């Protein structure tokens, strides 16, 4: 469960007032083309009800009666300072994660889902300045500024880096090289809610400094960032999100939204990122459609896992025949065993059906399938009689098993040890300080310190990932599961089991040395 807070009073525009004059509360804007023709607010409550059936809405006294007609609590607030204090009250009592959303949000379910299930402890929805995408660090010192530009009607006063918000500006706070705008939604892990409450109160005391265009979440993110919280970024990946302040904007947004395929986005989001080369280009290109097909037929992820296990066992059996056709059939079967292995996770994410047993089944039987195929290959070598009594090939299988288990344990152990290191704390800055120069100087200083010796080498290697060829080569060299299954399939179909095991041993050995070197260096750094 999540504690949901809706912000009923949107910020004013920068400079000239809205063309239509005063803003219209989200309860009075209707969405005629949506099923049931709800209001913007009604639709949002409906979407959020599974997270929090009793959300808190912070509204101006004039709008409060309209909000009260709906479910949830309504807190009245006169002004921006009141909004911040009301929010602090909710955050103080929070015993769950918090989701803060503008009440005038028109969003896809998938966007809300992605925000709430993100692994970051704090994550904000942003939109980047499309022109700053190819930005090169310009020579000369950039000065902090209070920009007047807007993105989607919101001030572009935020500087974002690769993975987090670096600095936020307001009508009072200047920011160096702003390149994004905060759209409003903000999700916070429980462990940050106390800090949020404290920050919101401090900000409330400074409220006289801010302008009418300053949004509550913009201020909150400013406070969190200046207190050293790493606020992650969520950018729309095909999900729809817009803030609608009057009926005209709502009508336009509905037209725009009808051009989006939410189901497709949900399906695309179900495909795991950060996969290897083979998985990305030879499986993930189409596996999602099998996943959707399976999900629509009501198949559970565990049933898909069982199909994959069955295919893996059939493959091992085919290899065990020791014939050429058996090897070819085994290669095809192991490929599809791997495809269905990817599909089960995608079905789980697409259908949002997760289970402890499913995660275990998937992980355990991945190993089982792989090692069962080793057995099949070694048995096939014995049966074929081409390798004497087959004990030589069995020994190779044995070493391949030991190597692969050892490599996995290397991953697991390094991961556990790595998590012991607390992340380096981010620099902090008083809320009252006008510009972010000190913050950036501190970040720059750390970067310079890191440049020498082993850290410099590691950073160079990390940065080399910009090049696609280096990126994929690095992914292939570690011999991930997709590459392993592909290597088994190809070598077994074309050559013989001995070649397969030698390939696994050589490639696996290179991978072990490569990862070990990197991790030893990182332990030194």
């Amino acid at each position, binding site marked *: 469960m999540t504690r949901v807070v809706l912000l009923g009073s949107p910020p004013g525009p920068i400079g000239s007032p809205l063309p239509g004059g005063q803003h219209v509360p989200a309860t009075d804007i209707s969405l005629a083309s949506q099923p049931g023709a709800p209001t913007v607010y009604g639709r949002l409550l409906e979407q959020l009800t599974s997270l929090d059936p009793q959300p808190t809405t912070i509204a101006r006294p004039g709008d409060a009666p309209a909000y009260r007609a709906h479910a949830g609590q309504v807190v009245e607030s006169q002004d921006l300072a009141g909004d911040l204090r009301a929010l602090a009250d909710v955050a103080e009592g929070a015993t769950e994660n918090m989701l803060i959303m503008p009440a005038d949000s028109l969003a896809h379910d998938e966007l809300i889902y992605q925000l709430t*299930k993100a*692994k*970051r402890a704090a994550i904000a929805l942003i939109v980047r300045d499309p022109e700053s995408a190819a930005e090169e660090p310009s020579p000369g010192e950039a000065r902090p500024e209070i920009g007047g530009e807007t993105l989607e009607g919101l001030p572009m006063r935020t500087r974002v880096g*690769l*993975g987090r918000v670096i600095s936020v500006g307001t009508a009072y706070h200047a920011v160096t090289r702003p390149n994004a705008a905060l759209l409003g939604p903000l999700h916070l892990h429980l462990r940050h809610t106390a800090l949020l409450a404290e920050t919101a109160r401090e900000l409330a005391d400074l409220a006289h400094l801010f302008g009418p265009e300053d949004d509550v979440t913009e201020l909150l993110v400013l406070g969190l960032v200046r207190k050293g919280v790493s606020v992650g970024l969520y950018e729309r990946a095909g999900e729809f999100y817009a803030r609608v302040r009057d009926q005209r904007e709502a009508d336009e947004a509905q037209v725009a939204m009808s051009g989006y395929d939410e189901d497709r986005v949900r399906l695309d989001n179900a495909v*795991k*990122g*950060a996969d290897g080369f083979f998985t990305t280009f030879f499986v993930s290109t189409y596996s999602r459609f099998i996943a959707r097909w399976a999900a629509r037929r009501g198949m559970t992820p565990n049933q898909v896992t069982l199909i994959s296990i069955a295919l893996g066992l059939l493959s091992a059996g085919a290899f065990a025949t020791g014939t050429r056709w058996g090897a070819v059939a085994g290669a095809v079967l192991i490929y599809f065993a791997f495809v269905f292995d990817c599909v089960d*996770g995608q079905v789980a994410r697409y259908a949002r059906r*997760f*289970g*402890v*047993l*499913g*995660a*275990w089944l*998937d*992980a*355990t039987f*991945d*190993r089982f399938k792989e*090692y069962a195929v080793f*057995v099949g290959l*070694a048995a096939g070598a014995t049966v074929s009689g081409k390798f004497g009594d087959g*004990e030589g090939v*069995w*020994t190779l*299988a*044995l070493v391949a*098993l*030991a190597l692969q*288990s*050892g490599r*996995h*344990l290397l*991953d*697991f*152990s*390094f*991961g*556990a*040890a*790595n*998590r*012991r290191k*607390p992340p380096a704390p981010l620099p902090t800055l008083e809320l009252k300080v006008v510009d972010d120069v000190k913050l950036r100087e501190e970040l720059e200083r750390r970067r310079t310190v890191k440049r020498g010796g082993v850290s410099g080498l590691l950073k160079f290697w*990390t940065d080399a*990932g910009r090049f696609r060829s280096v*990126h994929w080569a*690095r*992914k292939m060299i*570690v011999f991930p*599961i997709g590459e392993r299954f592909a290597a088994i399939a190809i070598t077994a179909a074309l050559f013989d089991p001995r070649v397969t095991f030698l390939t696994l041993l050589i490639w696996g050995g290179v991978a072990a040395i*490569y990862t070990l070197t*990197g*991790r*030893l*260096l*990182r*332990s030194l750094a």
Partner: protein
Amino acid sequence: MITQPRVPAIAADPEEEQRRVQTERLLAYRDDGPLVSVLKGRVGRGLPPIPSLLVALLAIVALAVTGTLSDGPILLAPVLVLVVLVVTTGSRDHLGRFDWLAPPLLRAAEFVTIILLGLAEDTPKWLLFVLIYIVGYHTYDTVYRTRQGIWPPAWLFMAGLGWEVRLLILAVGAAVGQLTVVAAILTAYLLVLFSVESVLSWVRLDKASAQARAEQDLEQSPEEAAEELTGRADRN
């Protein structure tokens, strides 16, 4: 056969708590058995894990390449070297910067020794394959469980005999020329123990907590996790 989440007695500082839990995981991955736990606290501080393991591995490899591992009591040598050098390292805190190497090196030493003994005694390789698979299965299972925040019960590590008692049993079997029989009995025992306990525990856990941390990917490597979090590849 109950797996319980380990609840700390007092809610400590989160960073301290994180360090404690992760270190405990590292120690669990070592898969120490009864001998290590008996000696714990009775042999002083114990030897440093990484140097001891490296020396032991070198010694085992040297024994193998010099062809010393032929037949008879000499087959006790690799296991004795490993046990003598490494059994006391289980008492160490494993907080050193390279101590994450201990579990993989230890498992590597165990597997290499099993393979060398099997080669010396002409034990059927498929039997050794199953033995290594089931020992590896137990390690994977420990990893997956601790990733879900639940821990295999302490008795399982004792009943699983740990790397040291397993190897001692195999070494004695090899020394008296009965490795095949001994390995077969050990494999059958571990197969039943680890698989039955594991399946029962997971089914029970699944019923108890429909959610837990089911969404997480149990197999993810540390670099993949970082990449997913920041959207930026940082592999080595």
